[in-house]
């Protein structure tokens, strides 16, 4: 249990997707113009990460890893399919996003209307694929740990995009040098926030 809490806190603050690894930067910069839309996108990212990371974990453990196919029989123990992991992960992510879109459309049209345009965008959000690749690299012990990691990463991303959107809403009233307006100043704010987040780095959990 304590391990799970550790992974959760670590993936939100210490290994924050945006500020420590710069993943999901494109949508982070493009969609963070207002708080409302960024809450929608952030929620969708959490949702998709919580589903795809455990699914990719199982995929990795029972199909892709060296020796993962041993459950088929002893003669399959030497097969190593790990070079296929990119294509498998991205296929799972793309199909999950499509599935999530259909389910949401069917059961909650109001949520679908508010998320609508963001859902397909998520398939190409690098935070999602990055979550799966980090999960593969860090060798989590079981599905629960992988799920918690997915949840934590999603929450971290959510927090980051809502924070930057709030700052951008305010900075619109400031007198920023003309060439820096918009994209430039957003980069600088993100940099300063990333430095602030680096204070979490020394924390051992």
């Amino acid at each position, binding site marked *: 249990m304590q391990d799970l809490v550790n992974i959760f806190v670590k993936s939100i603050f210490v290994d924050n997707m945006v*500020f*420590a*690894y*710069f*993943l*999901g*930067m*494109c949508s982070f*910069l*493009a969609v963070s113009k207002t708080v409302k839309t960024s809450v929608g996108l952030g929620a969708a990212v959490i949702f998709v990460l919580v589903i795809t990371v455990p699914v990719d974990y199982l995929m990795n453990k029972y199909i892709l890893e060296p020796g993962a196919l041993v459950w088929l029989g002893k003669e399959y123990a030497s097969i190593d399919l790990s*070079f*296929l*992991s*990119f*294509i498998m*992960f*991205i*296929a799972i992510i*793309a*199909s999950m996003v*499509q599935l999530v879109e259909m389910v949401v459309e069917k059961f909650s049209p109001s949520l679908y209307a508010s998320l609508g345009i963001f859902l*397909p965008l998520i*398939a*190409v*959000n*690098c935070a*999602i*694929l*990055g979550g799966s*690749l*980090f999960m593969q*690299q860090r060798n989590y012990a079981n599905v629960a740990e992988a799920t918690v990691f997915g949840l934590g990463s999603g929450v971290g991303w959510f927090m980051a995009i809502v924070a930057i959107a709030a700052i951008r809403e305010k900075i619109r009233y400031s007198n920023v*040098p*003309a*060439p*820096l*307006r*918009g*994209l*430039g*100043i957003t*980069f*600088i704010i*993100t*940099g*300063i926030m*990333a*430095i602030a987040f*680096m204070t979490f780095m020394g924390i051992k959990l």
Partner: protein
Amino acid sequence: MAAKQDREPMFSPKNLRLITNPINVDNPITKQVLGICSALAVTVKLEPAIVMALSVTVVVAVGNFIISAMRNTIPSRIRIIVQLVVIAALVILVDQVLKAYAYNVSKQLSVFVGLIITNCIIMGRFEAFAMANKPWPSFLDGIGNGIGYGVILVIVAFFRELFGSGALFGHQIIPDSFYNMGYVNNGLVILPPMALFAVATIIWVQRSRNKELIED
């Protein structure tokens, strides 16, 4: 192409502009806001930055070509999955080649080779250009955007490696006498946030020189 005299030449001015535009005014990173993630993460040193830029150029150029050749047969509802499969296949090739011939760099790049798949430049160019244009212009467009992306990467990596480690390509540039006089490498430049400031500075310079890029 002798038999097709009436068609436009392979390097007509229009086609050349497809290469030069993204390097300058229509840069994928500073103007189109695509492919930021990897641009920031791999620029601590020059070598991985160049390898990354080359890999992305190859993937986006070849991918653009393939997608453009298939553009009339892809059903639009599932086009994202088709595009992702094409990219993923190309990225696997690049990854295997890197592992075979440049193992150290491939270790440094870690997950970021895989993340070329979700590099928005590639998807962005597929959607914006390859789906609507012939294979050859698409190929050139891919090369142009790859180079435009690479230029930013190399500029950022140059300054970060020079000031952060006092070296270029791993060879020491700042002479020992400087260090004896009390010069210290700037540790802040190695840290990831510095890449953001570097890109912001590039945007600042570019937009000051080219006023029509300014947002309001």
